């Protein structure tokens, strides 16, 4: 194990702590605005994890779509609906039930993944972007097109839903 791999691991853990902390804050805070900002921090940290996992392209896409897109969308929704201002959010509801269930699920998933015999870390390819591009326009072309169609459909659907009825 080289020194640089060590540092990489360290960074991975650091980003992981940021991510987990952001996620926890996002679900725990009573202010919806802060929850969304925490989500943004969480997503950025996850983008860092992607970078460390040799997925540069995904990391940038994560920032592009998630932070620059979805978080902004959520902020818009928050501001247009003014929820959280006129109606301050209720405190966490039934925390015991949530904690129990999420503990069982999380522990189960963790136990399942750790008891599975995972291979040791393989090296990422050198030109991940190139390989990704080839995969998207080659073997995965149909799924890629399908995603486009789904996106278009959801955009239209969202437009139709949000549009105000004519009086």
């Amino acid at each position: 194990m080289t020194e640089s791999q060590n540092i990489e691991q360290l960074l991975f853990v650091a980003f992981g702590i940021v991510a987990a902390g952001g996620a926890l804050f996002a679900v725990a805070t009573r202010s919806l605005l802060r929850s969304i900002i925490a989500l943004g921090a969480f997503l950025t940290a996850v983008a860092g994890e992607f970078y460390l996992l040799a997925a540069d392209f995904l990391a940038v896409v994560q920032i592009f779509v998630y932070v620059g897109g979805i978080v902004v969308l959520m902020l818009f929704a928050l501001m247009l609906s003014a929820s959280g201002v006129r109606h301050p959010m209720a405190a966490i509801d039934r925390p015991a039930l949530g904690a129990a269930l999420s503990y069982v699920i999380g522990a189960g998933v963790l136990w399942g993944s750790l008891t599975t015999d995972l291979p040791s870390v393989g090296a990422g390819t050198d030109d991940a972007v190139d390989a990704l591009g080839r995969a998207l326009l080659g073997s995965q072309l149909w799924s890629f097109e399908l995603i486009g169609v789904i996106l278009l459909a959801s955009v239209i659907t969202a437009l139709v839903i949000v549009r105000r009825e004519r009086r």
Partner: protein
Amino acid sequence: MTTAAVTLSSVLFAIGVFGVLTRRNAISLLVSVEIMMNAAIINLVAFSRLYEPEAMTGQVFALFGIGIAACEAAIGLALVLAVYRRFGSTDVDTIDLLKG
């Protein structure tokens, strides 16, 4: 690092589940769902590196996951706005009628 990745992903997933079960605001629910989604995507990326670094299947899947998340957010938030207009609140517990 694989262990770290699956651990992180499990923890994040559990946090997301907790949020979904305990929050009452529709936007908060979406936030929690996005957290769960990211937990899954982290696994995809990590395993993509483990199993078939050349085929990129995991990364492609992760990319699709992000795309689907965008769709989900668009429609979900549109619904939130529509619900807000009708009920004056985005609290999911106020929406307990099948017919608005």
